[in-house]
């Protein structure tokens, strides 16, 4: 498997994970109960962190491929 598809796959996962984060945030905005807020804090926020890490990984891989790092 080449490096390019692996990077693209990581970005696709980041897109899906961010969408899940957005859905949880939307549920919180529409129905802000303590349980929804707790789920958002302990599931939604880590999902966003995962998406950021995947994006950062893709950026670093990109820079390495261009021999800028």
């Amino acid at each position, binding site marked *: 498997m080449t490096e390019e598809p692996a990077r*693209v796959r990581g970005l696709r996962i980041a*897109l899906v994970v961010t969408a899940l984060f957005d859905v949880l945030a939307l549920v919180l905005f529409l129905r802000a109960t303590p349980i929804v807020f707790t789920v958002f804090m302990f599931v939604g926020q880590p999902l*966003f962190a995962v998406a*950021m890490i995947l994006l950062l990984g893709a950026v670093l891989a*990109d820079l390495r491929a261009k021999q800028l790092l």
Partner: protein
Amino acid sequence: MRGRRLAAALAPLLIPAVAMAAVDGVPLPRGWIGTTTDWVRGFGIAFVLLDLALLALAWRNLRRFGLTTSVRGGLFVAVALVPVMVAFLSFAYGLEQSTTVSACGSCHVMTPFVADLQDVKSETLAATHFKNRYILDHQCYTCHSNYGLAGTLRAKFEGLGHVWRYTTGTYDLPIKIASPYPNVRCLGCHGASQKFLGSAGHPKEEMPNLMAGATSCLDCHGPAHPAQQKAALR
């Protein structure tokens, strides 16, 4: 140019979102444009919808064009930039909403407490404070959290425990306060008021006991809430 495009994309999403967040109940003053919380909610919903659209667009472009420069830019906006705003707004909104009476009342074990609080005929201490608006809003949270940053943090951790016990059903009925109610929470508002200081019920010789918590405010001013039924439903 991009800023204009973003504003144009946000406007149709923001206007209905803010309208959705409008307050109901008491008549509002002329020129009312909503509270900060309403706007945080409105902007939050708008940014979520915008981000979902941007994510769909980024997905499509990634599949169609691969990792081009413009696709990279779109990915950065959809996965990093807009979600940061969503995270900030949703955290602020969730934190604010977790202090409301409706948040406390959303767990049904709290229903009798909230029903009594909002009962204008009730003479309990909580109902008296509520119906006279001695505390303007967030009445449960105001009386059941200590003052200052440490009080807020402790209340949040305790709230997390409440959610866990409620969700897992690991609590006992009737519901009881976890520790004796501290006078400092009453004195934070009443301590410096002339009605409190000049009252015949608070003689000077009793003040040190009241300030130290040796005599509980609730000894004379209770009950804060109605007595709970042991057979209350889970």
